[in-house]
């Protein structure tokens, strides 16, 4: 039961995040979606390593308190969280500059201005 809950929750987060990215036109909303999606993926990765009845992978003076949970996904998730944060920081910096440059964060307007500046004639 906990498994379906966790997996359901994780995939739910991914779906909500993707919805925000795919169906919303405001760039800030897309970045929120990105953060939510990455959280969902992290939860999925962490819950893969869970062992019912397992203990946290912290030894007490060298001895394992009991059967341990799989430590590797935890290491991966830790790395993934920090990666997510790094990318989020860069995204927000870019959002600030796009806002100052184009005065709007609406995707359609940004895309049109972007193509105009790239000089792609709508032949």
């Amino acid at each position, binding site marked *: 039961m906990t498994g379906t809950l966790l997996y359901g929750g994780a995939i739910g987060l991914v779906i909500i995040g993707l919805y925000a990215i795919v169906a919303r036109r405001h760039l800030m909303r897309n970045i929120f979606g990105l953060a939510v*999606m990455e959280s969902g993926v992290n939860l999925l990765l962490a819950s893969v390593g869970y062992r019912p009845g397992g203990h946290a992978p912290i030894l007490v003076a060298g001895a394992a308190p009991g059967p341990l949970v799989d430590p590797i996904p935890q290491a991966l998730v830790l790395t993934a969280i920090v990666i997510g944060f790094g990318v989020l920081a*860069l995204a927000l910096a*870019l959002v600030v500059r796009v806002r100052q440059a184009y005065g709007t964060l609406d995707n359609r307007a*940004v895309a049109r201005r972007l193509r105009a500046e790239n*000089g792609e004639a709508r032949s």
Partner: protein
Amino acid sequence: MSQSLPAIIYPVAIPLMGAFLLPIGARRMAELAGLFGRIVVLLSFSTSLALAVSIWTAGPAVSAMGGFAAPLGIVFYADRLAMLFLLALNVAVFLFWPRGQGAKGGPCTLMLALLAGGSGLILSGDLFNIFVFYEITAVASYGLAASGRTHAGFAAALRFLILGSVGSSLMLIGIALIYARTGTLNLADLSRIAPHALTGPVGLAAFILLLAGLGVKAELVPLNTWVPEVYGAAPARVSALLAGVVSKLAMVVALRFVVQVFPGDGAHTVLLVAGILGVLAGELAAWRAGSLMETFSYSSIAQLGMVALAFSISGAAGIAAGIALALHHAVVKPAFFMLAARWRGPVGGLAGAVKDSPLAVWLFVILSLSIIGIPPFPGFWAKFLFLKAAFAAPSAGVWIAVFVMLAGTVVEAAYLFRAVLVFFADGERGGSTPRFAFAQLAPALGLGAVLLAAMVFIAPLGASISGMADEASNAAAMAARVLDRGE
């Protein structure tokens, strides 16, 4: 036979140290940053060259990080294929080092980070480690895309970042699936477990998710909508580097996954479909493109579609063709981008360019002839290898792939020579087209010289590529080298 070579970490460590130290220096002496950066790249290139020589002589090198043996720790595995692309990356970063106003601290640091990330991507033999290095390359390329500091640059970089991050998240889900099924992350270990754990739909779905992540950088069809925007907005040197080499790294990593972990024909079919769509999208969009820069953006999509097609043919011949196509594209496309950087605006406005810059126009003609695949030029031998591999294992999909490839070549020849004829047409009102300063043309001429050299030494080059392909296609031998080290 393989050797344990701890020095294999240098191509990653040296640029990293350079990247960490550069900001410290850059705050005071801005122009020193560029020089310091180039020295670091040269240093990294020389160590990579030394590594390549030892690998060419003594066979692939394996090094377990931290002394922890293969399935537990992270392993670096370098065979000749990895070394080839590592050297190509080093050369490209050196050749396209940011110049002029862009050479302040920021872009140089990002270039070094890109070099470190790319080297790690190619050398690493661990699934999650490849994801981490892929992320480094990705973040560095988002930053470089914005390094032009133009409004379009920021917007293009942001949209690229969002698309790339979605791809990376899908890739992470794929890694989670694989770890859930197999319990290990080492590619060699996976290649032994995969036959009975990853052959079902879950394995194929995991590959598709991995490919979704890699596809963003490897410009596969549904994932490359960022290509025209970013290459148009980023400085030409960045576009040349991204299109020329970095996209190839992602494609080679995809090849590693296909060879080692997903040898079934499901994965090959996915690559085949992605390749066909890539060639179609690239060539047709380029046919209708407005400016030269946009044409070459779409043309790089098409070329990478061809590389995907080559890799989708299982066996050493397909890989050899893929390497040849990727290498040839890595030489030709950056030169095209450097030319397009100077010839901005719609192609029509460039009439009579042959009078203003004859050298650039003749270089354009030679590059076009080679990328179309006209016999004396190396491009023909790359396509020749592809057709030989394709017809060796003909299946329905491969026939379509060959037809699309050949039809794509005709369309490519049409839009390239449509531009050439405009160059040779006599400009009506004597308008002058932009001239080339030597510094701008130098990298392109260098690459043109490399192309002509390759034309002369095609036989030894071909032999070494097929040797590389045989080595890279033998998953069992790779696994044996990594796992059965006897430490």
